[in-house]
């Protein structure tokens, strides 16, 4: 197992003060500290080549977990082993196997073209010249940024900058990549491009990805498995679709008749199923099994002009999940 996390906890000592000048003054002489439990007893195992989505609300502990996994933080207790390394020892061989992209932090030099930062990374990671050129060529073409390579980073759009950050992070062919909100603030097309890229890269190189994102479409498109953290504790570890179905097992049906169906028959159907009928179009939101039954009965009422069945928006589903996660996981 390349990544093993056992009973990992991280506590921070934080000081609190009242707002305003008087609060600041009092705090200067008498500072009050509190212990904040960012993570408590987290255990998780991640397979080679997996894309794991880490979900949780703001402040749940996702980024703290990522920081512990890459060795930025020392834990208060617990163990992490990544390919046999303890992250916070920060051995050079370990750091060459991992990479991190943080959507709100950048490693590129702001005032000079990204190509220069790539060269710096080549030296830092000791990447042989041929490997460097081949990898850079491939990444630049995949992310369609060849014409931006020699433009100052500060002049790039947010999407272009994120693509450059991803290139900088992948130049050394890391085995494990941690993406913390990689699509934050990006437009829909840029988000899609990055999603497609991650999927392609994972399939081609079997790179393990750990992904946090507030965009559920990122998670839905990339992660079969998710690890949910709530208030610093592990809440769910399993299939993302199972979680979505548990929270909202309903699907949406749009059934269009060729002509207005028989009223008495539709009224009889409405005794068993919850739906809405507007002339020739029937709308329903029902659990999967019920929906299948309803469709078969609708076929008996008449030949459809069209049928559409789709999942409910995953963003809405997960929003209702995070309002009261324990309710859905009992």
């Amino acid at each position, binding site marked *: 197992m390349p990544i093993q996390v056992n009973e990992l906890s991280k506590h*921070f000592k934080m000081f609190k003060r009242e707002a305003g000048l008087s609060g600041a003054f009092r705090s200067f002489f008498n500072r009050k500290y509190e212990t904040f439990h960012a993570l408590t007893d987290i255990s998780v195992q991640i397979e080679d080549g997996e894309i794991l989505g880490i979900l949780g609300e703001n402040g749940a502990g996702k*980024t703290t977990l990522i*920081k512990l996994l*890459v*060795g*930025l*933080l*020392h834990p208060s207790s617990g163990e992490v082993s990544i390919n046999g390394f303890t992250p916070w020892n*920060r051995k*050079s061989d370990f*750091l*060459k196997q*991992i*990479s*991190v992209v*943080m*959507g*709100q*932090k*950048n*490693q590129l*030099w702001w*005032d*000079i073209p990204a190509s*220069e*930062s790539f*060269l*710096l*990374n080549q*030296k*830092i*990671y*000791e990447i042989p010249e041929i490997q460097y050129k081949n990898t850079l060529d491939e990444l630049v073409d995949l992310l369609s940024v060849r014409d931006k390579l020699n433009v*100052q980073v500060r002049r790039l759009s947010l999407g272009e900058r994120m693509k450059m950050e991803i290139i900088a992070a992948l130049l050394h062919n890391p085995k494990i990549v941690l993406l*913390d*909100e990689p699509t934050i603030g990006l437009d829909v097309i840029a988000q899609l491009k990055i999603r497609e890229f991650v999927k392609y890269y994972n399939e081609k190189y079997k790179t393990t990805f750990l992904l946090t994102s507030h965009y559920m479409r990122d998670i839905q498109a990339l992660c079969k498995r998710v690890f949910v953290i709530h208030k610093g504790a592990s809440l769910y570890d399993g299939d993302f679709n199972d979680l979505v179905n548990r929270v909202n097992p309903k699907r949406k049906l749009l059934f269009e008749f060729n002509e207005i169906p028989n009223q008495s028959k539709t009224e009889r159907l409405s005794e068993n199923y919850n739906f809405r009928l507007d002339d020739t179009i029937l709308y329903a939101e029902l659990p999967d099994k019920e929906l299948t039954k309803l469709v078969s009965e609708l076929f008996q009422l008449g030949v459809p002009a069209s049928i559409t069945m789709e999942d409910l928006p995953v963003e809405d589903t997960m929003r209702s999940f995070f309002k009261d996660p324990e309710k859905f996981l009992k």
Partner: protein
Amino acid sequence: MKAWIDKYFSVIRMTWIQALEYKANAIVGTFAIFSGLAIEFLIWKQVFQAQELNEIRGFTFNGLMAYIFLCMIVGQLKSSWATSIEMIDSIRTGEMNKYLIRPISFFTYHFMMFIGHNSLFYIVYTTVLILFPILLPGYAFPTFIHIIGFIAALLISIYLSYSIYFCMVCFAFWFGEVRALVIAYNLSNIVLAGQIIPLRLFPDSVRNIINLTPLQFLVDFPVSIATANLPMNLWIPKMGMALSWCIIMTLAGRVIYRSGIRVYGGYGA
């Protein structure tokens, strides 16, 4: 070793590229270096002329100019306070994350950035130093060996100064904001390292205290070699002491850093 040199030379190279990206800043920076030297020259010329002095406490005008110019040069070349402020900010704001996730040393990476940023000064001051024996003959670098001694002492001074700053920077792991400490040290060492007044003009009691610290090796030591105020037989023992201070400060920095990194918060996303 080659990989290590390549890695950290690349950092210096990046700072050069960055500096050249802003042409106006580079040109003004060069002018600013000369303007500092010119101002000192004009002020002291006025003082000597107005008072009709031949010397001040044993310094002739040319002798004092040689001393002050060299002090300014050494003071400028060894002072990494601006880099230290950047390092403190990176610890406080979590910017340090980008160094910690890569196989590089925070200490060495910033040392190379400091060297890179200071390169413009090195180039300009080397030119000034070459002109020294012509402009102020007999006041500095009487022999070639003095040039070698000065360069060796200067390199020690640059490294020692950076190591001292680094120790202070590391306190940011606990206190977050320690810029005041760095600035206070910077101001005090301008005086106590002999950057303004030669250490030999200090009272004995003060000088005895300074001699217990590494401050004597930051400015006074290289300038005393260059101006032939330090007998040659003392060069090697003094360099030995200076190198010992380098080792002590490097080890101290390492111990403080290692214990600081354990409490590092990595703030920011």
